[in-house]
């Protein structure tokens, strides 16, 4: 059998990887010791042509299926890892067939939940992770994706202005439909809840969970958060004919949740006394799209919200409310945002992404101001932040600080103890 590489844009350097060796035995020097979640398959990270790739050893038909699903999810604009290649037809040095490999790009600045828990954490981290996962699950369901294995392990998290943004990493069990039935969504929620409770209990057993509430109670949040969000995004609402402003109100509520309404169905009943409104097509990324349009900055939703708030403050502070929004935004970008993010010394840039750093500096300025009981210029805040806070942060571009062995992976069931 010949080695076969399936990829949209194959990188010839892929051929240099030791495909004849079982993934578990790949030499240390090509591996990147990044943390990963609990998994059944063997997963390793490798460096190749200046990027980090995740390699998962899995049966060929499943690998191809997952590759296709990830491609389709990417096409639909869903937050998930990017598939890179499928390598099949592997044969070991002893002539035995080896399982195929699914290769995805390592998601930069992403953190598996277990790595988060090995850092000192702010209280309430578990709930923030679950909130992020609820948003991800709602988005996937809106797109017609049934996940089948919703869990913290199958999700990657990126910092998002103090909160988290969630990304799908494991699509093995997924199915993509035109539209999901309520039963399919409930099934996913059921799976999510059990998995999350189990994962939190595991952290608790390992002495890593510093939450004051028990895992079962925290895990229930996935259902309540999900249902709230789903209801707000898709539910019908009856309003009186005399209260048309509530149509606008509904749109604003959705915007505040980070969604744009692309299609809203409005029906009046026969006697014309009430109006029924129901969002038909909603699209995540309300704030990040607006910021992108104004400044060209491509950041996550909460970061965008934070940056837009700062832009608003800048506009008000400089008395420019009446002016063209894009011109003011450009000025804010060159006078505030870029100077702040450029002030980070080279050696520290891998710690945090620029937008997250900007958010942290704003937080830090507020903290300094509160202590000093007067306003602090942004330059002063950034200098103090770079000197006193940033050096103590772990590198998160691709988290290296954590020892992977402390994050045991349950390898394939045929692995020896």
């Amino acid at each position, binding site marked *: 059998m010949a080695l076969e590489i399936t990829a949209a844009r194959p990188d010839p350097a892929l051929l240099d990887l030791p495909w004849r060796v079982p993934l578990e035995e790949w030499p240390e020097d090509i591996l990147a010791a990044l943390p990963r979640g609990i998994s059944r398959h063997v997963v390793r990270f490798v460096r190749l042509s200046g990027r980090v790739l995740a390699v998962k050893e899995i049966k060929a038909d499943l690998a191809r299926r997952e590759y296709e699903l990830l491609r389709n999810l990417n096409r639909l604009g869903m937050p998930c890892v990017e598939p890179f290649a499928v390598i099949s037809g592997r044969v070991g040095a002893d002539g035995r067939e080896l399982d195929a490999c699914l290769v995805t790009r390592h998601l930069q600045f992403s953190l598996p939940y277990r790595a988060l828990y090995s850092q000192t954490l702010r209280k309430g981290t578990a709930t923030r992770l679950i909130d992020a996962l609820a948003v991800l699950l709602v988005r996937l369901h809106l797109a017609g994706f049934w996940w089948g*294995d919703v869990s913290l392990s199958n999700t990657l998290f990126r910092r998002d202005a103090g909160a988290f943004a969630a990304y799908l990493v494991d699509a093995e069990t997924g199915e993509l439909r035109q539209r999901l039935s309520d039963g399919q969504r409930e099934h996913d929620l*059921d799976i999510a809840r059990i998995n999350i409770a189990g994962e939190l*209990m595991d952290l608790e057993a*390992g002495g890593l969970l510093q939450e004051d509430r028990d895992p079962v109670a925290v895990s229930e949040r996935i259902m309540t958060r999900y249902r709230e969000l789903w209801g707000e995004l898709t539910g019908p609402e009856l309003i009186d004919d005399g209260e048309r402003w509530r149509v606008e109100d509904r749109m604003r509520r959705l915007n505040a949740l980070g969604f744009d309404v692309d299609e809203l169905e409005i029906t009046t009943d026969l006697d014309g006394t009430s109006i029924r409104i129901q969002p038909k097509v909603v699209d995540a990324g309300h704030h990040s799209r607006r910021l992108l349009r104004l400044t060209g900055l491509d950041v996550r939703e909460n970061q965008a919200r934070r940056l837009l708030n700062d832009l608003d403050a800048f506009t008000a502070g400089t008395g420019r409310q009446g002016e063209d929004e894009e011109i003011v935004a450009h000025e804010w970008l060159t006078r505030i945002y870029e100077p702040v993010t450029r002030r980070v010394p080279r050696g520290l840039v891998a710690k945090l992404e620029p937008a997250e750093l900007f958010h942290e500096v704003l937080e830090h300025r507020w903290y300094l101001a509160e202590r000093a009981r007067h306003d602090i210029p942004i330059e002063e805040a950034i200098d103090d932040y770079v000197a006193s806070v940033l050096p103590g942060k772990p590198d998160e571009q691709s988290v290296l600080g954590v020892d992977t062995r402390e994050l045991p992976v349950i390898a394939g*069931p*045929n692995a020896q*103890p």
Partner: protein
Amino acid sequence: MATVKFDQATRIYPGNDTPSVDRLDIDVADGEFLVLVGPSGCGKSTSLRMLAGLEEVNDGKIWIGDRDVTDLSPKDRDVAMVFQNYALYPHMTVADNMGFALKIAGVDKGEIRKRVQEAAGILDLTDYLERKPKALSGGQRQRVAMGRAIVRSPQVFLMDEPLSNLDAKLRVQTRTQIASLQRRLGVTTVYVTHDQIEAMTMGDRIALLKDGILQQCATPREMYDRPNNVFVAGFIGSPAMNLVSVPVTEDGVQFGSHRLHVDRSLLGSSGNEVIVGMRPEDVEVTTNEDGLELIVDVVEELGADAYVYATPANPDIRLEGVGDDALAKPFIARVDGRRVPDKGSKIFVYPNPDHMHVFNKESGARLG
């Protein structure tokens, strides 16, 4: 423990015109292991979710025991859906790994301990309860995963392709384990798979679905010996049954140069052609010019026997079969390992009249 009944159960997904499960009728006996099998998209998972209470039933009913559960929520049905995927939690003991779902369900500690103990006894894991999963072998880990389901002691187990991501060796091993465990526990089980070998080896009975419609529900033996229609005939059995369209004659059918007697009353309404089916072990192979002429492509030696893969010498003869690759399907015959024909040689075949199957060409239905 309980019986399960799909009673004309129908599911039409919103936006679809045709049902994904169409008037499904199955009676599952108390303690029975029923396998729902069929190609991808035939409605297996939908049926299972309807039984679990996770999918709306548009028409018909679902019964568990003598309760009509059609409108009951999942938690009121006392069924346990066994996860397709499982991960063992590294910091938790084997006991906690087995019992954690009960904790979520709010079962009290004493009861959890009791049920975990019982399950561990059944699974031969008693000595490992306080260990961490890391200290277990692959097979033991697999049993812990099963323990998770057992401790819930439901009336019915539901399993959706639980073996699909295991490697071949472990799949065979786990298949046997699940089947024997189910027999020991005697819990009614509905098991979904697309793999007919899994279905044949595990099920007390098999229900084969195609396009949402039940094709046949019978024991593995019956499915093999008396398939209801061409689809069942082609789906069950490996290597698959040979299916050939042949002309009808006055007193039977013409199989190449071989005449086969078939009762006219059976063929009565079935037009000029019928489909004749025979399993590889029921093929008479000869070098006399008697039967359907084939050219041997490949011979697979198995020791005592050998499989002969051959194609009709007359390219107009089409072999029927399941799937899109029907055209490329070879004719397969099992022959005595000491008398195998040469590759490239000419052979003649016809079915053993005692074990041949005749199907209506149009409807695919079994005749007789």
